[in-house]
């Protein structure tokens, strides 16, 4: 195979992943790292560096319109992004210091857990927050958004803010260790733990990701874990795919796409686990 076939294949795979990610309601990073590390010849260090950038670019692309539409909230995002960034930096150092086989094995287990979480898909459209907690109230984390599907304004506020902040430090660490975007964990933490409506959770997750992943990405960049020939086709392919995926959103069966993504995650998770454990090598 000529050398250029791999970056070309990477671009095409990322284009398809970008198309799938939008209807499946996930960031591209969670698919990118296990699939590319499992089936391409690139070392896991470069895949994780590129994975953070893929997730970062997708989050930055979606952020402005979500903020303008009120589907993402800065007052909610900023304190959580602060903790997630600290966790992501610590995670990046940890991930680069650990032996590759350990990270590969842990990645396999994590991806299989993510597939299980996605399969159960237990989320609440409008969680019930009987009383905001003192920290959430002091930070004035609340808002109103227009739910166009329901055709009405929805007011929201948060509870369990200290627990949410602690969780985001852990989520950031996982993102840094594995180079995964963390939307798969951000949304349940915001929605099920803090009581944020599902749509605002998904939008705000992107804003948190855009900040925390950049913190971890710098650590990878300064450790040399960034190759233009891996990162650039990945980011460009994923962005173009997401652009098409957004337009296909109305035509595709979102739940079928979501099941396909779960199957892809299972395959990639098993592959990562097998590589990490040295099975079949």
């Amino acid at each position, binding site marked *: 195979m000529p050398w250029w076939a791999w970056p070309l294949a990477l671009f095409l795979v990322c284009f398809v992943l970008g198309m799938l990610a939008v209807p499946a309601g996930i960031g591209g990073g969670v698919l990118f790292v296990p699939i590319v590390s499992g089936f391409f010849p690139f070392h896991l260090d470069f895949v994780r560096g590129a994975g953070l950038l893929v997730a970062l670019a997708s989050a*930055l692309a979606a952020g402005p319109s979500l903020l303008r539409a009120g589907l993402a909230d800065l007052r909610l995002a900023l304190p959580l992004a602060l903790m997630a960034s600290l966790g992501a930096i610590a995670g990046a150092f940890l991930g*680069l210091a650990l032996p590759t086989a350990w990270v590969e094995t842990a990645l396999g287990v994590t991806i299989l857990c993510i597939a299980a979480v996605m399969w159960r898909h237990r989320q609440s459209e409008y969680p019930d927050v009987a009383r905001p907690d003192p920290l959430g109230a002091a930070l004035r984390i609340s808002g109103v958004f227009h739910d166009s599907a329901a055709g009405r304004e929805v007011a929201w506020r948060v509870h369990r803010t200290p627990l949410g902040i602690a969780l985001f430090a852990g989520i950031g660490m996982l993102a840094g260790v594995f180079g995964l975007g963390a939307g798969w964990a951000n949304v349940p933490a915001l929605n099920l733990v803090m009581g944020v409506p599902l749509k605002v959770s998904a939008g705000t997750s992107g804003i948190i990701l855009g900040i925390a992943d950049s913190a971890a990405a710098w650590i990878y960049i300064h450790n040399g874990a960034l190759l233009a020939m891996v990162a650039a086709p990945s980011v460009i392919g994923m962005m173009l795919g997401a652009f098409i995926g957004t337009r296909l959103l109305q035509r595709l069966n979102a739940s079928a796409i979501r099941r396909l993504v779960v199957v892809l995650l299972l395959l990639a998770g098993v592959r990562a686990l097998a590589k990490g454990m040295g099975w079949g090598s």
Partner: protein
Amino acid sequence: MGVVNREEGGVKAGRSPEQLLYARVLDWGMKAGLAILIAGFAAYLAGALPVQVPLEELPRLWALPAGDALRESGAAAGWNPAAMLDRGDALALAGIVFLAGVSVPCLLLLGLAYAARRDWGYLVITVALAGILTLAASGVLVAH
């Protein structure tokens, strides 16, 4: 909690002036970063500038751990603005560096907006975030 009319909710709508300012700067930065990424990578592939590692040698490097690849190639880790102007492989990373850094000016402008509103708590949070990202971008934190 749940579904209410805007008037009944007694809470502010989610689109504060600060949020719109952040969205505007982020939008500009994201588009500029992507344009720089595509142009820089195209120039790299076209061979517009000399490169430190010939393209056909990349498969040997991309299979190695990052530290070993750095040693083999003799390249420096991190980003160097001067190298981006005269080396194709460094230029190809300019868009990535731009995208990774775009949140810092957004946060600094947001901090100014919070300061003008005397929202001291969020001023501290935004300045702390901008400081952490700047520290990470500077390379000071990198382990040896």
